[in-house]
């Protein structure tokens, strides 16, 4: 059995107005993976995250955390939320303190850590998200992107084992969008799992190693990237853009027999390396 943080057993969730947001989902969230959650608008991504945080209770089915069913009493939820952190889509909903540093402080303050640990965690989070200069700025004088970084820092400072990011790049500019995956790389440890929902495939394609695709409240794909991104019908159904690396590789494969057996690369560098290697081989033959 592979270790997993969460497992869903036939979980359904109905909002009180009758919207079926999650429909009979069974899946596991493994330990130590970088998971991208894809799916069109309204496919149930945000609801899935609320279920993971224990903010909503499934109407049917059970959710297991580390092998035990989630307990919805106060201490059970507290334990869960110490280990699972969620960065909300709208930073404004998440921030409520007066200044940047204070907002980042709030999470750790509620964790019964020592003063030294709290200060060092907060400083680390501030340094990671490059917020040093804004440390004492009131929240309502920040721009959208700055608020987002504060939100990320606030969750990161709590050192969650499972870090959930709900469309984190929706208000970030190009620099901070790409920077975000760099932050996440720094946070990557063997036992930390990331869940990252996004519409910007190209930002996560190199980073994420596990994909979950939602469509109308159902899971329609779970697994590695190659089988997903070569399945055109599925991509179209779930409104997923094909990463440019995949498109270019497929175009190469179809353009000329010599490129026919290029393996699907997982990064720009891998693609270029393959092309260069093939070119060299050809040069040798022609000599």
């Amino acid at each position, binding site marked *: 059995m592979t270790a997993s943080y969460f497992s869903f057993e036939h979980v359904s969730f109905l909002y009180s107005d009758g919207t079926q947001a999650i429909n009979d989902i069974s899946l596991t969230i493994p330990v130590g993976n970088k998971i991208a959650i894809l799916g069109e608008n309204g496919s149930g991504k945000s609801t899935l995250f609320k279920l993971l*945080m224990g*903010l909503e209770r499934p109407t049917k089915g059970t959710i297991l955390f580390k092998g035990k069913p989630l307990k919805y009493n106060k201490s059970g939820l507290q334990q869960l939320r110490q280990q699972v952190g969620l960065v909300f889509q709208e930073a*404004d*909903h998440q921030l409520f303190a007066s200044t940047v540093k*204070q907002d980042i402080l709030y999470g750790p*303050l509620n964790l019964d850590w020592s*003063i030294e640990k709290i200060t060092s965690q907060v400083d680390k989070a501030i340094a990671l998200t490059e917020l040093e200069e804004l440390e*004492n700025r009131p929240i309502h*004088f920040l721009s959208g992107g700055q608020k987002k970084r504060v939100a990320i820092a606030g969750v990161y400072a709590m050192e969650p084992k499972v870090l959930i990011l709900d469309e984190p790049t929706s208000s970030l500019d190009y620099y901070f969008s790409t920077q975000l995956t760099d932050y996440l790389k720094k946070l990557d440890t063997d036992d930390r799992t990331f869940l990252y929902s996004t519409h910007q495939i190209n930002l996560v394609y190199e980073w994420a190693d596990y994909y979950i695709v939602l469509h109308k409240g159902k899971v329609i794909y779970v697994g590695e990237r190659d089988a997903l991104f070569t399945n055109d019908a599925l991509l179209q159904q779930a409104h997923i853009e094909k990463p440019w690396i995949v498109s270019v590789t497929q175009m190469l494969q179809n353009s000329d027999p010599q490129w026919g057996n290029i393996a699907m690369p997982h990064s720009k560098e891998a693609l270029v390396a393959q092309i260069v290697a093939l070119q060299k081989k050809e040069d040798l033959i022609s000599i």
Partner: protein
Amino acid sequence: MLNIDYIAHHNGLQKVAAGQKLLLSIGALLIVTVSRNNSVALWTLLVMSSVIVFYAKIPLKAYVTLMLAPLGFSLAGIVTIVVSISFTNEVNTDMLWHLFTPFATLYILPSDVDRAINIFLVAFSASSCLYLLILTTPIYEISPILLKCKVPTIVIELIELIYRFIFIFLQASMQLYTAQQARLGYKSYKMSFQSLVLLISVLFRSIFFHYEKMTLAMKSRNIEHFIIPDVYLLKKKWQRLPLILFIVYVFVAIGLIFV
């Protein structure tokens, strides 16, 4: 409103301990309201205004604009004190001014004028004391002091949350207002009223929506209580200058009371 908070974070008294600012403003406020003395009130107004403008370096224009609000309120308030009304035709001899109407007589008595001037001066200089605090001290610096004064945590947390929600409210209303203006919502008089009604109802809805989301976020961050212990706040030492200022102020005020 957004401006006030900005000033509270960027002013000449930023490095002064919050307790000291609190002492200066609340101390002066008490002296003014307890003594109810015209010259003390004028002296306080002078001291507070000069501290705000010269020491805290708050732009004179901003301060004057802000003072217009209490000025308007106190002026409106004293009208009812100054003007008396009588439904009989008895005429008081020492009236300063009177107006006969078929139904009643409006008149002004000198003693009422004195009382009105006193109330006006006290109210006006008391508001300058509060402005000193509001304009130089961000709310979160006051919370630890309130905690030390044994104010229940729930009250302090409520104050902080209300404070945060004022800004959310303002921001939401400004966004809605611009969105309406962009689509000519305030073109005519009639339209303006319609738009305003819509704005208010949407505002309430969006505030509740926001509140719900915020509760979710606080739950998911495990936040139970959120007064920041002062270990984590920047240490600010009591400084000599504000203290000397305060002592001088108190002595002059006491002197003025007994003159």
